[in-house]
């Protein structure tokens, strides 16, 4: 009843009030200006990070609701998974544990040996990395960027800049941390750069995401560079962000045009950038002097890689890529 009265009271003024409000064009100008102001503030001054974090936290319940169907699907799937499949998985995992156990024994002795060698060389010790297991909540909703969101955030001690890896290799880097989730930019995103090393000959370069086709680009390498189809790129560890030696990509295409100054090298990420649910966030412990360490690392690596074939392109590449590397690390 009260609603009825209300309705009679409200019905009359509403159209005239709104119809005679600011004209559509005035509103357009007002809100467009506001949008441009926001774009400018966000891109130039980065003031809005706090605001964004606040809103992301508010949006979290919505995300949970939106993820509910998928969660229920996965849970029921797990519930109804057959006995055979579980047994199968169990044997497979046991075998894998065995294999990894053997590998780790080897690793322990190698780590010890490495420590002794580093002591002999009076080099800094590599600090142990700490890692957090996270689950992918959803893929980024923006079609222009290659991002995923994982369910670990500031409350779980995730720090922006941590490397994100899966069982096969690097898949990206944590770029924004929210209280309960964080944003991971994939290696295939155009804005992400990773210092890499060709496993075969130790050649250093910087890999950039291509932004489309799930591919990685290896730009600014001279045409006489020693990179072949099938080469594996691993992290060089020079940046202090990614632990050294993680697989990044596989070279799938090397085009050398006679009139182009640089070779066109396209690689495919080794880590499952688009098909895993569990990922590992790997970070160097806070407070380490990464710059100093990486410089020393580079100095130690130099004589090693000098043994390998192409040193001249190497130095050219270093000169070429250094400014870009600084850019990318910002």
């Amino acid at each position: 009843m009260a609603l009825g009265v209300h309705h009679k009271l409200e019905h009359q003024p509403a159209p005239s009030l709104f119809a005679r409000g600011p004209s559509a064009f005035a509103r357009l100008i007002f809100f467009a200006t506001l949008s441009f102001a926001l774009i400018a503030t966000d891109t130039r001054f980065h003031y809005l990070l706090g605001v964004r974090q606040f809103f992301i936290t508010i949006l979290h319940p919505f995300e949970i609701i939106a993820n509910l169907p998928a969660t229920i699907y996965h849970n029921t799937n797990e519930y109804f998974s057959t006995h055979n499949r579980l047994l199968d998985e169990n044997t497979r995992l046991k075998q894998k544990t065995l294999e990894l156990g053997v590998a780790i024994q080897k690793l322990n002795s190698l780590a010890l040996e490495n420590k002794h060698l580093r002591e002999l060389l009076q080099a800094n010790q590599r600090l142990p990395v700490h890692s957090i297991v996270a689950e992918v909540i959803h893929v980024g909703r923006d079609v222009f960027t290659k991002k995923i969101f994982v369910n670990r955030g500031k409350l779980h001690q995730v720090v922006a800049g941590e490397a994100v890896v899966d069982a096969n290799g690097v898949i990206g880097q944590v770029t924004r941390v929210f209280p309960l989730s964080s944003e991971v930019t994939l290696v295939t995103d155009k804005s992400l750069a990773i210092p890499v090393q060709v496993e075969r000959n130790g050649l250093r370069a910087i890999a950039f995401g291509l932004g489309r086709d799930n591919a990685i680009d290896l730009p600014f390498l001279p045409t006489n560079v020693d990179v072949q189809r099938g080469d594996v790129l691993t992290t060089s560890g020079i940046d202090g962000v990614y632990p050294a030696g993680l697989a990044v990509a596989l070279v799938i295409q090397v085009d050398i045009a006679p009139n182009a100054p640089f070779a066109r090298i396209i690689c495919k990420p080794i880590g499952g950038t688009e098909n895993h649910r569990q990922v590992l966030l790997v970070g160097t412990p806070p407070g380490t002097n990464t710059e100093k360490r990486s410089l020393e690392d580079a100095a130690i690596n130099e004589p090693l890689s000098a043994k390998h074939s192409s040193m001249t392109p190497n130095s050219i590449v270093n000169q070429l890529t250094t400014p870009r590397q600084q850019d990318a690390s910002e």
Partner: protein
Amino acid sequence: MPQSNFKIIYFSLVIAFICLLFPWSGLALKLRPDFLLITIILWLIRAPNLCNIGTAWLAGLFVDIATGGIFGQYALAYTITAYCAVVYQKRLVLFNHTQQLLYVFFLLIISQVTLLILKAFSGQPLLSWAYFLPSITGVLLWRTAVALGLNTGGRARGT
């Protein structure tokens, strides 16, 4: 009417927003229509006194937060689209379904082109024509909704 309509409008906008938040991936992400913009266009045509350019701007801001892109991109795209819808609102109500459908397609394309321009300025890679697929799926969604009896303010009778 206005009281209940107000609730329905904002409830439907929240639902549309949750639809956007679903964990879409792969092909589904490429085909995903812009549920929120379509809902806004619907209410801009049907209830222009309750849903206007400001509503569109606010909704765009929420999409900006959800996508994690630069603040204001979707807000601007939605504002411009809403303006185009509002300017023709009185005519849109008189349109028949086919004419309305074409205009909605035009509006969805406007929003995508605005975004494309903004993204191109911020140095994102240009995408293939598949980028415009959401507009087509959006129009199909609109058509399905009309076929299922949703009142979009258009006239059912022939041209």
